[in-house]
Protein backbone atom coordinates (compact mmCIF):
# COMPACT_ATOMS: atom_id res chain seq x y z
CA UNK A 1 0.00 0.00 0.00
CA UNK A 2 1.54 3.29 -1.03
CA UNK A 3 0.22 6.82 -1.47
CA UNK A 4 2.39 9.75 -2.43
CA UNK A 5 2.42 13.28 -3.80
CA UNK A 6 4.98 13.93 -6.50
CA UNK A 7 6.37 17.19 -7.87
CA UNK A 8 7.88 15.45 -10.90
CA UNK A 9 6.67 13.03 -13.62
CA UNK A 10 4.81 10.02 -12.24
CA UNK A 11 6.85 6.82 -12.61
CA UNK A 12 4.11 4.36 -13.65
CA UNK A 13 6.61 1.56 -14.28
CA UNK A 14 7.86 1.72 -10.68
CA UNK A 15 4.29 1.82 -9.36
CA UNK A 16 3.37 -1.27 -11.41
CA UNK A 17 6.50 -3.10 -10.28
CA UNK A 18 5.68 -2.25 -6.67
CA UNK A 19 2.30 -3.96 -7.08
CA UNK A 20 3.53 -7.04 -9.03
CA UNK A 21 2.39 -10.09 -7.13
CA UNK A 22 2.41 -13.69 -8.31
CA UNK A 23 -0.80 -14.48 -6.49
CA UNK A 24 -2.63 -11.78 -8.47
CA UNK A 25 -4.23 -12.28 -11.86
CA UNK A 26 -5.67 -8.80 -12.31
CA UNK A 27 -4.12 -5.32 -12.40
CA UNK A 28 -6.34 -2.31 -13.04
CA UNK A 29 -4.99 1.21 -13.29
CA UNK A 30 -6.50 4.62 -13.89
CA UNK A 31 -4.57 7.64 -15.12
CA UNK A 32 -5.90 11.18 -15.10
CA UNK A 33 -4.45 13.17 -17.99
CA UNK A 34 -4.40 16.92 -18.55
CA UNK A 35 -6.86 17.48 -21.37
CA UNK A 36 -7.10 20.46 -23.67
CA UNK A 37 -10.65 21.48 -22.78
CA UNK A 38 -13.04 21.74 -19.84
CA UNK A 39 -16.61 23.03 -19.78
CA UNK A 40 -16.23 24.22 -23.34
CA UNK A 41 -13.08 26.26 -22.71
CA UNK A 42 -9.65 25.65 -24.21
CA UNK A 43 -7.18 24.68 -21.46
CA UNK A 44 -3.46 25.39 -21.94
CA UNK A 45 -2.07 23.97 -18.69
CA UNK A 46 -3.01 23.14 -15.13
CA UNK A 47 -1.67 23.91 -11.71
CA UNK A 48 -2.21 21.65 -8.70
CA UNK A 49 -1.90 23.00 -5.19
CA UNK A 50 -1.66 20.29 -2.55
CA UNK A 51 -1.76 20.56 1.22
CA UNK A 52 0.63 17.68 1.70
CA UNK A 53 0.21 16.72 5.38
CA UNK A 54 -3.52 16.06 5.08
CA UNK A 55 -3.42 14.90 1.44
CA UNK A 56 -1.01 12.10 2.35
CA UNK A 57 -2.83 10.97 5.49
CA UNK A 58 -6.23 11.09 3.75
CA UNK A 59 -4.79 9.32 0.68
CA UNK A 60 -3.42 6.54 2.88
CA UNK A 61 -6.81 6.26 4.57
CA UNK A 62 -8.53 5.84 1.18
CA UNK A 63 -6.13 3.02 0.19
CA UNK A 64 -6.72 1.30 3.55
CA UNK A 65 -10.48 1.55 3.00
CA UNK A 66 -10.11 -0.01 -0.47
CA UNK A 67 -8.12 -2.91 1.01
CA UNK A 68 -10.84 -3.48 3.56
CA UNK A 69 -13.85 -3.14 1.26
CA UNK A 70 -12.59 -5.16 -1.71
CA UNK A 71 -10.82 -8.50 -2.17
CA UNK A 72 -7.60 -6.94 -3.38
CA UNK A 73 -4.00 -7.75 -2.49
CA UNK A 74 -2.60 -4.24 -2.78
CA UNK A 75 -3.25 -0.72 -4.08
CA UNK A 76 -1.28 2.42 -4.80
CA UNK A 77 -1.83 6.02 -5.83
CA UNK A 78 0.38 8.93 -6.83
CA UNK A 79 -0.89 12.51 -7.31
CA UNK A 80 1.07 15.32 -8.92
CA UNK A 81 1.49 18.83 -7.62
CA UNK A 82 2.71 21.95 -9.38
CA UNK A 83 2.41 23.03 -13.01
CA UNK A 84 1.36 20.38 -15.56
CA UNK A 85 1.21 20.54 -19.33
CA UNK A 86 -1.29 18.97 -21.76
CA UNK A 87 -0.94 15.19 -21.88
CA UNK A 88 0.83 15.01 -18.51
CA UNK A 89 -0.44 12.49 -15.96
CA UNK A 90 -2.00 14.23 -12.97
CA UNK A 91 -2.85 11.11 -10.99
CA UNK A 92 -2.49 7.36 -11.18
CA UNK A 93 -4.45 4.86 -9.08
CA UNK A 94 -4.03 1.09 -9.29
CA UNK A 95 -5.19 -2.10 -7.60
CA UNK A 96 -4.18 -5.76 -7.89
CA UNK A 97 -6.35 -8.75 -7.05
CA UNK A 98 -6.77 -12.44 -7.76
CA UNK A 99 -9.80 -11.61 -9.92
CA UNK A 100 -10.66 -8.65 -12.13
CA UNK A 101 -14.01 -7.66 -10.67
CA UNK A 102 -12.53 -6.62 -7.33
CA UNK A 103 -9.56 -4.89 -8.98
CA UNK A 104 -11.89 -2.77 -11.15
CA UNK A 105 -14.12 -1.84 -8.21
CA UNK A 106 -11.20 -0.94 -5.94
CA UNK A 107 -9.45 1.19 -8.57
CA UNK A 108 -12.69 3.06 -9.23
CA UNK A 109 -13.29 3.57 -5.52
CA UNK A 110 -9.80 4.98 -4.98
CA UNK A 111 -9.94 7.54 -7.78
CA UNK A 112 -13.49 8.63 -6.86
CA UNK A 113 -12.52 9.21 -3.24
CA UNK A 114 -9.23 10.90 -4.15
CA UNK A 115 -11.10 13.40 -6.31
CA UNK A 116 -13.59 14.21 -3.55
CA UNK A 117 -11.63 14.07 -0.32
CA UNK A 118 -8.00 15.12 -0.77
CA UNK A 119 -7.08 18.75 -0.07
CA UNK A 120 -5.94 19.37 -3.65
CA UNK A 121 -6.94 22.32 -5.81
CA UNK A 122 -6.74 22.65 -9.55
CA UNK A 123 -6.28 25.90 -11.41
CA UNK A 124 -6.91 25.94 -15.14
CA UNK A 125 -5.04 28.31 -17.42
CA UNK A 126 -7.02 29.25 -20.52
CA UNK A 127 -6.22 30.40 -24.03
CA UNK A 128 -7.29 33.99 -23.28
CA UNK A 129 -4.76 34.38 -20.47
CA UNK A 130 -7.25 33.87 -17.64
CA UNK A 131 -6.85 31.25 -14.92
CA UNK A 132 -9.61 29.90 -12.67
CA UNK A 133 -9.75 27.60 -9.69
CA UNK A 134 -11.91 24.60 -10.58
CA UNK A 135 -15.03 23.61 -8.57
CA UNK A 136 -15.44 27.01 -6.97
CA UNK A 137 -18.72 28.83 -7.39
CA UNK A 138 -16.98 32.15 -7.57
CA UNK A 139 -13.52 32.81 -8.83
CA UNK A 140 -11.34 35.55 -7.44
CA UNK A 141 -11.95 37.57 -10.61
CA UNK A 142 -15.75 37.24 -10.17
CA UNK A 143 -15.50 38.24 -6.54
CA UNK A 144 -13.45 41.30 -7.35
CA UNK A 145 -15.85 42.37 -10.10
CA UNK A 146 -18.70 42.33 -7.60
CA UNK A 147 -16.92 44.12 -4.80
Amino acid at each position, binding site marked *: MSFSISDSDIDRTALRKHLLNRSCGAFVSFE*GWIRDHNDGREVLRLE*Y*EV*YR*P*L*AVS*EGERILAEALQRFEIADAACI*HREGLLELGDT*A*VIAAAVAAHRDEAFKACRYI*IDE*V*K*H*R*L*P*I*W*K*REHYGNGEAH*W*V*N*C*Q*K*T*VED*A*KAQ*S
Partner: protein
Amino acid sequence: MKQVTVRLFAVFRDAIGVNEIDLQTGAHTAKDLYAELCRDHRGLHHEPNALVAINETISDWNDVIDDGDVILLFPPVAGG
Protein backbone atom coordinates in the same frame (compact mmCIF):
# COMPACT_ATOMS: atom_id res chain seq x y z
CA MET B 1 -12.30 35.89 23.03
CA LYS B 2 -10.00 33.21 21.60
CA GLN B 3 -6.73 33.61 19.77
CA VAL B 4 -6.67 31.40 16.62
CA THR B 5 -4.64 31.03 13.45
CA VAL B 6 -6.46 30.63 10.12
CA ARG B 7 -4.65 29.22 7.09
CA LEU B 8 -6.11 29.83 3.64
CA PHE B 9 -5.62 27.81 0.46
CA ALA B 10 -6.06 28.19 -3.29
CA VAL B 11 -8.95 30.53 -4.20
CA PHE B 12 -9.38 31.63 -0.56
CA ARG B 13 -5.73 32.64 -0.26
CA ASP B 14 -5.84 34.43 -3.62
CA ALA B 15 -9.03 36.25 -2.56
CA ILE B 16 -7.43 37.77 0.54
CA GLY B 17 -3.85 37.85 -0.65
CA VAL B 18 -2.38 36.23 2.47
CA ASN B 19 -2.11 32.58 3.43
CA GLU B 20 -2.36 33.01 7.18
CA ILE B 21 -4.32 35.24 9.56
CA ASP B 22 -3.89 35.44 13.35
CA LEU B 23 -7.02 36.79 14.95
CA GLN B 24 -9.05 37.26 18.10
CA THR B 25 -12.53 35.84 17.65
CA GLY B 26 -15.72 35.25 19.56
CA ALA B 27 -16.80 32.58 17.05
CA HIS B 28 -18.12 29.42 18.70
CA THR B 29 -17.89 26.92 15.80
CA ALA B 30 -15.82 26.63 12.64
CA LYS B 31 -18.92 27.74 10.70
CA ASP B 32 -19.20 30.91 12.79
CA LEU B 33 -15.53 31.68 12.18
CA TYR B 34 -15.91 31.21 8.40
CA ALA B 35 -18.94 33.53 8.39
CA GLU B 36 -17.01 36.14 10.41
CA LEU B 37 -14.09 36.01 7.95
CA CYS B 38 -16.46 36.39 4.96
CA ARG B 39 -17.92 39.51 6.65
CA ASP B 40 -14.55 41.05 7.44
CA HIS B 41 -12.64 40.26 4.24
CA ARG B 42 -13.79 41.54 0.87
CA GLY B 43 -13.35 38.83 -1.71
CA LEU B 44 -13.68 35.89 0.65
CA HIS B 45 -17.03 34.26 0.03
CA HIS B 46 -19.17 31.34 1.13
CA GLU B 47 -18.47 28.13 -0.82
CA PRO B 48 -21.03 25.40 -0.06
CA ASN B 49 -18.46 22.64 -0.63
CA ALA B 50 -15.64 24.19 1.36
CA LEU B 51 -13.98 21.94 3.99
CA VAL B 52 -12.43 22.74 7.32
CA ALA B 53 -9.62 21.13 9.29
CA ILE B 54 -8.93 21.93 12.92
CA ASN B 55 -5.40 21.20 14.11
CA GLU B 56 -4.63 18.97 11.10
CA THR B 57 -7.84 16.93 11.34
CA ILE B 58 -10.67 17.21 8.81
CA SER B 59 -13.54 18.43 10.96
CA ASP B 60 -17.22 19.28 10.94
CA TRP B 61 -18.31 22.86 10.42
CA ASN B 62 -20.23 22.59 13.71
CA ASP B 63 -17.12 21.59 15.69
CA VAL B 64 -16.22 24.04 18.44
CA ILE B 65 -13.00 26.01 18.11
CA ASP B 66 -10.76 26.59 21.08
CA ASP B 67 -8.12 29.10 22.05
CA GLY B 68 -4.87 28.32 20.23
CA ASP B 69 -6.47 26.25 17.43
CA VAL B 70 -5.09 26.30 13.90
CA ILE B 71 -7.98 26.30 11.43
CA LEU B 72 -7.40 25.34 7.80
CA LEU B 73 -9.99 26.72 5.36
CA PHE B 74 -10.15 24.51 2.26
CA PRO B 75 -12.06 25.71 -0.80
CA PRO B 76 -13.89 22.94 -2.75
CA VAL B 77 -11.31 20.29 -3.60
CA ALA B 78 -10.56 19.22 -7.17
CA GLY B 79 -7.95 16.49 -7.25
CA GLY B 80 -7.33 14.14 -10.14
